[in-house]
């Protein structure tokens, strides 16, 4: 026997693979996808874009106002979410939670928040607090708890134990110890995760206008409804530029926080050396003078200016955005009332539609993930600098991928729907594109992290490039590839629950209709089912990931 032994793990993995393929085939048939609609769809989109071109930038005042509102919504929403997430994370982390009940409640809130998409929360909140950015901000704040809270919990749990034992041994109380040892360790992750989420939330708030929750989405929607395609394109390109700029700067900021050097400010060697020397002098002087305050090193100045900049932006946002800040607490009553109306959930009135919607949602998720993966693989090979060793090719591909990620998926979906009409296929195509470029980046990053030694060893045997790729690169990258695919499936399922809101198929459409005709209890049923599906996929994903590792 020269084949690998059949361990139960291999059998399980085989089973998972089989189910995955079967589910994809079923999904493909369920949404009535064909190759001609697939390629026809891209054709239609291309035609639409040509028709939209050139963009008309004549109502820029309105577009810029809406863009700024979008940014402010993201900023305020993310900040609120961070404030809510911090206590939740300390309650949800095994090493800081005060008791089992708090632990369970905090974990449950974080999981629930993650499972209900922002757009759905926003659609419900708009009913409670009215049209405008407030509903959007609250929705961003709540949904982001899912991710921020989870990342913060992990950061707290991964803090090393040794300082904690040492400081609590000095007679410090529990919270003194936590603040002195765990918080400093977790702070870079806290900030990094908040920045990362801010980046995502700018994208999310760009589409909240579809349900009346403020931001540029409303401008785009109005233009499209009025068949005013050139103006729509103008608005889309403005938000595209803004999102791309924010992604680039947030990436750099995060790299400098996590890498812990001020690479952003002092780029060239000479300047950096000079600032290090100056810092050295400042430190020396502080010590000789017995200063009891932190000296103003470049790192500290940078940190303080970042905090001041952020605080300034936040104040500006709160002052200029059109929401009633103080009285917005009064809206909490409305939100509770509306939320109470969702119960008891009614699964019966629209049973066939609900079942169809859920199945369609799942099918869209599967097809988009697989199609996206197929596009992503070749792109990733071009973008990884250790595979195709050509600077122009890999940087060009990276730039191309970055540019495409700048358009929120739902806006792509809107364009596809405008080009092809309502239905699951345009939604699937939009998610496919989104998946492809995101996945390509993840895969390229994975490939670049592959250890070079085994590759050299295989090259040394006289293997060709492609032989080497399959013998050395792919096996090393495989566990990551599998878990990234699962992650994307997870992301796509979440996205496909809201595609329907812009006419792209899935359960979202039914949800929006139910909201419109005030069938709140049906909305409650849909919410619960959405949660179940998303949570089930998440559990499945983590189970398979454990198998692969």
């Amino acid at each position: 026997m020269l084949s690998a032994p059949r361990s139960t793990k291999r059998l399980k993995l085989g089973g998972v693979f089989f189910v995955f393929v079967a589910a994809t085939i079923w999904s493909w048939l369920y949404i009535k996808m064909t190759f001609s609609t697939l390629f026809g769809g891209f054709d239609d989109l291309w035609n639409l874009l040509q028709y939209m071109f050139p963009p008309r930038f004549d109502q820029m005042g309105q577009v810029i106002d809406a863009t700024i509102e979008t940014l402010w919504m993201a900023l305020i929403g993310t900040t609120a979410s961070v404030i809510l997430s911090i206590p939740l994370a300390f309650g949800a982390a095994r090493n800081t939670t005060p008791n089992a009940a708090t632990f369970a409640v905090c974990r449950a809130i974080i999981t629930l928040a993650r499972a209900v998409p922002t757009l759905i929360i926003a659609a419900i909140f708009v009913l409670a607090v009215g049209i405008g950015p407030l509903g959007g901000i609250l929705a961003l704040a709540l949904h982001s708890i899912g991710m921020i809270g989870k990342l913060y919990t992990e950061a707290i749990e991964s803090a090393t134990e040794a300082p904690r034992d040492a400081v609590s041994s000095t007679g410090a109380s529990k919270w003194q110890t936590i603040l002195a040892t765990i918080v400093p360790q977790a702070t870079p992750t806290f900030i990094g995760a908040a920045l990362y989420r801010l980046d995502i939330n700018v994208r999310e708030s760009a589409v909240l206008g579809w349900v009346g929750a403020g931001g540029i989405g409303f401008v785009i929607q109005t233009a499209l409804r009025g068949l005013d395609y050139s103006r729509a394109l103008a608005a889309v390109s403005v938000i595209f530029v803004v999102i791309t700029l924010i992604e680039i700067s947030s990436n750099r900021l995060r790299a400098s926080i996590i890498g812990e050097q001020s690479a952003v400010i002092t780029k060239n060697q000479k300047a950096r050396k000079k600032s290090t020397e100056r810092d050295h002098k400042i430190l020396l002087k502080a010590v000789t003078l017995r200063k009891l305050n932190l000296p103003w090193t470049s790192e500290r100045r940078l940190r303080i200016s970042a905090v001041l900049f952020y605080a300034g932006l936040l104040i500006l946002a709160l002052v200029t955005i059109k929401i009633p800040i103080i009285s917005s607490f009064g809206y909490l009553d409305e939100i509770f009332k509306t939320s109470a109306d969702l119960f008891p959930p009614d699964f019966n009135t629209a049973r066939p539609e609900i079942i169809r919607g859920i199945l369609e949602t799942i099918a869209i998720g599967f097809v988009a993930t697989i199609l996206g993966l197929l596009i992503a693989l070749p792109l990733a090979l071009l973008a990884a600098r250790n595979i195709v060793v050509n600077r122009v090719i890999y940087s060009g591909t990276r730039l191309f991928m970055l540019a495409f990620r700048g358009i929120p998926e739902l806006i792509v979906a809107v364009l596809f729907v405008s080009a092809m009409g309502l239905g699951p296929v345009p939604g699937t195509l939009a998610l496919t594109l989104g998946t492809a470029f995101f996945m390509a980046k993840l895969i390229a990053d994975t490939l670049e992290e592959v250890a070079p030694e085994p590759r050299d060893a295989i090259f040394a045997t006289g293997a060709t490039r492609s032989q080497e790729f399959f013998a050395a690169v792919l096996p090393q990258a495989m566990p990551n590839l599998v878990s990234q695919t699962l992650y994307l499936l997870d992301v796509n399922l979440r996205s496909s629950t809201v595609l329907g809101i812009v006419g792209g198929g899935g359960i979202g459409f039914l949800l929006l209709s139910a909201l419109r005709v005030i069938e709140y209890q049906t909305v409650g049923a849909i919410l619960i089912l959405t949660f179940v599906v998303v949570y089930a996929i998440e559990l499945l994903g983590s189970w398979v990931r454990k198998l692969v590792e």
Partner: protein
Amino acid sequence: MSKIFSTEADPIVSLTKVSKRFATGTLALDEVDLVVPRGQLLSLIGQSGSGKSTLLRHINGLHKPTGGEVLVMGCNVGDAKSKELRQIRKNIGFVFQQFGLVGRATCLENVLTGALGRLAGPRYGLVSYPKALRREAFEHLERVGLDSQAFQRADTLSGGQMQRVAIARSLMQQPVMLLADEPVASLDPESSAQVLELLLKISIEEKMTVIVTLHQVELAIDWANRIVGLRDGKVVLDRSAIGLTQEDVMDVYRRADRSNDLAKQEAEFPKSVASLSS
């Protein structure tokens, strides 16, 4: 055996039949009796896994005994309320093998955390501590010879420097007793000597009671005025260090010799493989 010591008045630590069985089933301490008078310098020896760390951690309440009684300065640590426990811990400095510094904080901040027991409410960052305490922390850093590193991040220091910062943090507590769990085990010989010398000097100057666990028997004998040996959680040796030779204490390691060598080989193993493959 420990009669000569228990006759002294006013013991600072007294353990009676202390046993510890961990949730995993390991019996780490087995009816340990130990009385430590004030001002004593005590070395705890024993092979790896004999229960040295566990014993130290019982004295400041990081572990609770599953049997017997731990009295520290007249207070029962085993069932002390968290407030009483804090009071005891405040008086006991604890120096760990792994230093336990917060790497991202400056040395000065790390030293200041030693004052938390004296302060009410959580603190974050240098400015949250009163100026007088900051000045005090500076002085302690000076004492361990690291005042010029006061504003440097702790993770930029060498191992020996880190351990000295940890000692300064203990001094910040103004402790009457010091527990040190293999304070030099992760240091090179030169810094080891430096750190131990510092520890000894400070202990004597401050008239502190000290219990230290050491791997190196020679050091243990040199440094202490009493040697206690543990094997499998039991006290198997307890005598004055004066006139003690290395052969006298080898008994503590007796059964262990072979397995000790094996453990050593095991520890070397990954290193030798790594050097082969590189």
